[in-house]
Every structure is written in C-alpha cells, then in structure tokens.
C-alpha cells in the first residue's frame, strides 16, 4: 500500500524531469540534476523531521526558526574555527533537539494540539533568536561556518549528497528495521491500540518531535555551510515546503503510512518544478499557480482518501 505510494512518488519525479527535459533541453542533464539534488537536500532534511511527526498524525510548524536559530548557534559558537566545529555542530543539533523535546512534551504530555504547540514554539524561537543575537549584529555574528563544513558542497559529487543519502539510510532503517519504527506506525494507525499493546505512546511522540527538531537544525547547519553565513529568515521557505514534500512523497497526512524514499522523491519533484518554471521565465504569479496545480495533480494521482462506501 504505502510502498506503492513510494513508486508513485518516484514516478511523479521522473515525469516532471522528463517533461522538463523535453521542453528545456539539458534540464535533466547530470550537471543540472546534481544542483537540483543539492538544493532538494535542504528540503529533504526538514521533510525528514516533518515526515516523522506526520506519521503519528502530528505536524511541526516550528521548523523555520528552529532551523534559523541552529544556523546562528553554529556560526556564533564555532567562530569559524575548524577546531571548534564538532562542538558547534553538537551545540546546534542540541538546540534543535531541545526545542523538539519541548514540542513533544507539549503535545504528548500537556495535550496541546500540535498545530498550536509548534506554532507557538516557532514564535518563541524567533523571539529568542532575534533577541539573543541582537538581530544578528552580535559580536560573534560575523563569523563564518568552519571550513570543513563548507567543503560539503565541493566536488563533482558533493559530500552533501552523501550526507543526504545517510539521512535516507538512517530514516529507512529506523522506520523499517527497528522496534521503534514498528511502534511509530502502530501509534500512527491506532494510538489507543498501541497504548494497550504496551507501546509508550507519549515516549514515541516525544522522540519523534525531538528528531524533527534535530533534522531542522541539521538543515540549518547545511544551509550555513552552503551560504557560509546565516541570515535572518533563513528558514521561512521551509515551512510549507516541508509539508508539501512529505505529502508529494506519498506520506498519508492522516498518519501511519509512508516511507522516506518517497519523501526524497517528493523533495526533488518540488525543486524540479520550481527550477523548471524559473528556467521557462514564467512570471512569479504563474509560477505560484502552476506550482499549486502540480501539487493538486499529484494529490489526485495518489493522495486521495478511501471512499466512504
């Protein structure tokens, strides 16, 4: 069932690339594909976290400023020095984990709806980020991402792509081979039954939101490495994009179904569509409308719910 959706998702990607290649020669060339993959990898990271919470019927709206906060933590704590890089990375991921933990606690223990909890948390993170970095004008705010990180994007086959592959492997193994993965799907399908089967539903939920925070932070780190320095509003594009990637990837928004492989395909599809439309010099309004129509088309292809009768 859900594995079929993965095939659809991949099919969707191929279709978009084919259309692109036909209407715009060279669009699907390796050189072009490579950069699209790199650009898609950022979406892929945040979508990994978004997918995990969606699997249990949740949602994470705090991604933009978790991402941005982590990015700033990375540079300000590393001060651009290679020696401090490991510490800085841990710190950045730690921030993500901490915020995710907060979201999870709020949702699982306090019973605050995910939409509200994460929306509020996004505001909190924005305030803290702006305030503590004095609007990114703090003393250490000028520092760059440490060299090794910036190397992520060099070469014919950028390390970033391997990092993404690593994330893909991690997600797939976690969800399909581990007891944790089994519990995630169980909770996603029927929390009550999962609870009565001895699954620590709250624990699982908290863990998932924490992971979501970590992945948002990871995306932040990657983006700093990419641009050399953080900027304010770095994460804004990734709120709706992460959700779109998840569902275009064939994950059921109702929870309990989906695989990360599909999400990888979804991320690439979205980037390919945008890139193609810009390459065709479609004006912004047209780009927005076609983007929406493409998502709708994909949803109609494999995003529909079971008929009632």
């Amino acid at each position, binding site marked *: 069932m859900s594995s079929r959706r993965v095939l659809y998702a991949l099919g969707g990607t191929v279709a978009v690339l084919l259309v692109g290649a036909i209407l715009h020669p060279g669009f699907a060339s390796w050189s072009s594909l490579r950069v699209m993959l790199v650009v898609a990898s950022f979406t892929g990271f945040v979508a990994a976290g978004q997918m995990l919470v969606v699997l249990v019927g949740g949602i994470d709206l705090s991604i933009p400023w978790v991402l941005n906060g982590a990015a700033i933590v990375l540079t300000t704590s590393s001060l651009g020095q290679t020696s401090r890089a490991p510490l800085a990375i841990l710190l950045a991921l730690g921030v993500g984990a901490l915020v995710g933990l907060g979201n999870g606690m709020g949702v699982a223990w306090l019973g605050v709806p995910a*939409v*509200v909890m994460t929306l*509020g948390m996004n505001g909190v993170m924005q305030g803290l980020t702006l305030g503590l970095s004095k609007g990114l004008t703090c003393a250490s705010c000028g520092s760059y991402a440490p060299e090794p990180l910036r190397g992520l994007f060099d070469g014919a086959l950028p390390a970033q792509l391997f990092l993404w592959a690593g994330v893909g492997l991690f997600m797939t193994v976690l969800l399909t081979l581990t007891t944790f993965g089994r519990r995630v799907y169980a909770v996603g399908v029927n929390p009550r039954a999962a609870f009565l089967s001895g699954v620590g539903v709250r624990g699982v939920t908290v863990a998932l939101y924490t992971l979501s925070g970590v992945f948002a932070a990871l995306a932040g780190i990657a983006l700093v490495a990419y641009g050399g320095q953080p900027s304010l509003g770095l994460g804004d594009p990734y709120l709706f994009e992460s959700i779109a990637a998840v569902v275009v990837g064939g994950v059921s*928004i109702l929870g309990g179904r989906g695989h990360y492989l599909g999400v990888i395909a979804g991320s690439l599809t979205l980037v390919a569509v945008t890139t193609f439309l810009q390459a065709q010099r479609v004006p912004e309004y047209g780009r*927005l409308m076609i983007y*929406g129509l493409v998502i709708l088309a994909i949803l109609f292809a494999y*995003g*529909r719910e079971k008929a009632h009768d």
Partner: protein
Amino acid sequence: MRDALRRVSLGYLVLAATAVAYIVVYTSRLGRFPTSFDYLSILNTTLPLVFVAIGQSLVVLTGGIDLSVGGMVSVCVAVTATTVSSSITWLFVVLAIGTACGALNGLIVAYGRIAPILTTLATLSIFTGLGLRVLPVPGGSIPQEVRLVLTNPATPTGLIWLGLAVAGWLVLRRTRFGMRVYAIGSDEASARAVGVPAAAVKLKVYALSGLCSALAAVFYVSTTTSGDANAGNPFILTSIASVVVGGVAFSGGRGSALGAVAGAVALTLVIDILFFSGIDPLYQSLFQGLFLVVAVLLGTVAALAARRRRQA
C-alpha cells in the same frame, strides 16, 4: 453541547483577561482610560480577522482546516481595490469570487477526497498567484462612501457589521445545516449513516469560508483604503490562532464561531498589550508565541477537568 459551551466560554475568558490587561497597561502608561478612538480603531482593524476567523472556525468544526484563506483574501483584496471604485456592484462580484474559491476547495475536499490541509495548501499557492496577477503592485482604491458605511473612522458602523456577523452565526447554528456541521465534525461516517449529506454540507462550509474571506477582504480594503496582493498571508496563521484561542477543537465537532470571534479580538488586544508594556521589539514574537500556547493550555486543562468532573 455543554462541553462546547464550556470551551466557548473559555474563549470569552481569554478575551476578558486580555481586555482587562489592555485597560491596565493602557491606563498605567497614558494615565487615562482608552478613548472612543482606541475602541473604534481596534474594532475596525479587527474586523477582517474576525470574518476570516468565523470562516476558519466553520471549516475546523467539520474537522478540516483552511490554509487557503490567505490566498482568497489576497485575490479578493486585489479585485476590490482595482474594481470597486469604478462601480459598487463589483462588491458583489468580489463576494461571488470568494465564494467560488471556497467552493472549489469544498469540491476537492468533499468529492475529490483530498485531505483539507493538502487541498488548501495547494489552492493557497494558486489563489496567491491569482492575486498577484490582478494587482502586481500595491495600490488601487475604494470609494469614500463605501468606507463611511463599512468602517467609518468616526462612528462605530463596524459594530453593525460585527453584530450582523454574530447574528448570522447564531442563525446558522439554529438551522439543521448548523447541526449537521457539528455532526460531521464529530464523526463523518456515522453522520452519513444517519442521513447527513456530508459531501454537500462540507461543500457549503468551504464555500462559506470563502465568502468570509471575501468579506474580510472588503473590510480590509475599506480600512486601509487600498489593496496589496500579499495582504492575505498573515491571516493564515492568525485565523488558526484565533480559532484555537477561541476554544474550537481541532478534531472538529466542538466549539463555536463566537469563540473564534473572541479569539480574534483577544489576539488583537495582545498586540496592544505588548505595545504599551514596552517590551523589546526583538522579543515580541516570543510573547505572542507564549500567549498562544498558554491560552490553549488553559483550554485543554479546563476541558480535562470538566471531563473528570463529569465522569466522577
């Protein structure tokens, strides 16, 4: 509906709390009570959000969510600002456009069987693009007489419209359609089993949400005197926030549009509270975020307590 009443009254509670807080900070800051000017401008600036929130609450009551309100408001703002000055009748065209956009959502959700959040995520992009097409650069205008009738800066005509909106809801709530909205939100399959035409009802609900967005757009243009194709975006999250603060359950079936109205006003007052309490602008969103979570937390706690009490 006891439970619902309790949640709604919670929306009012939040409103009351924020209102008191507003008066306190205002007076302690300016050494006098708010004047009619303050109340009036609060009223007029809140109206658009109030309308969007009503529409949003209807959708949420059926267990759905409407992210496309942002796009629908943008389109309608664009059309209003570019056409109404040429002829008042365009106002009705605008309302029709909004309703049509909403109906499109409804069709896709009810008959296309695509989850509301996904449907409206896609149409949000479409409608936003449409708005940009109509009004590439901020501008346009609205006839003075329209302003004086809708959001008169001198006399509280807004109250009339607010009253009408509330009355509209109270009537709706007392139609069979109103009961059916709750029925669907409570359990769609069962609702169908007992003879509720779920698809048709949902179609209407989303269309109504579109209509509300259109109304919001008209009042937006009326208060700001002209249009902006990006006007709608802020309403996506603020309308959701209003609905939540107003005590409407995301699972659907519980809550009331009146709660959402209260929530919308409360959110506006929070802005003023932050203004007069003079917090560092950099930290502003932090407090707004906290307000949201805390308000809802109180709601869930109260609901739990209520449930406990009833079961014990």
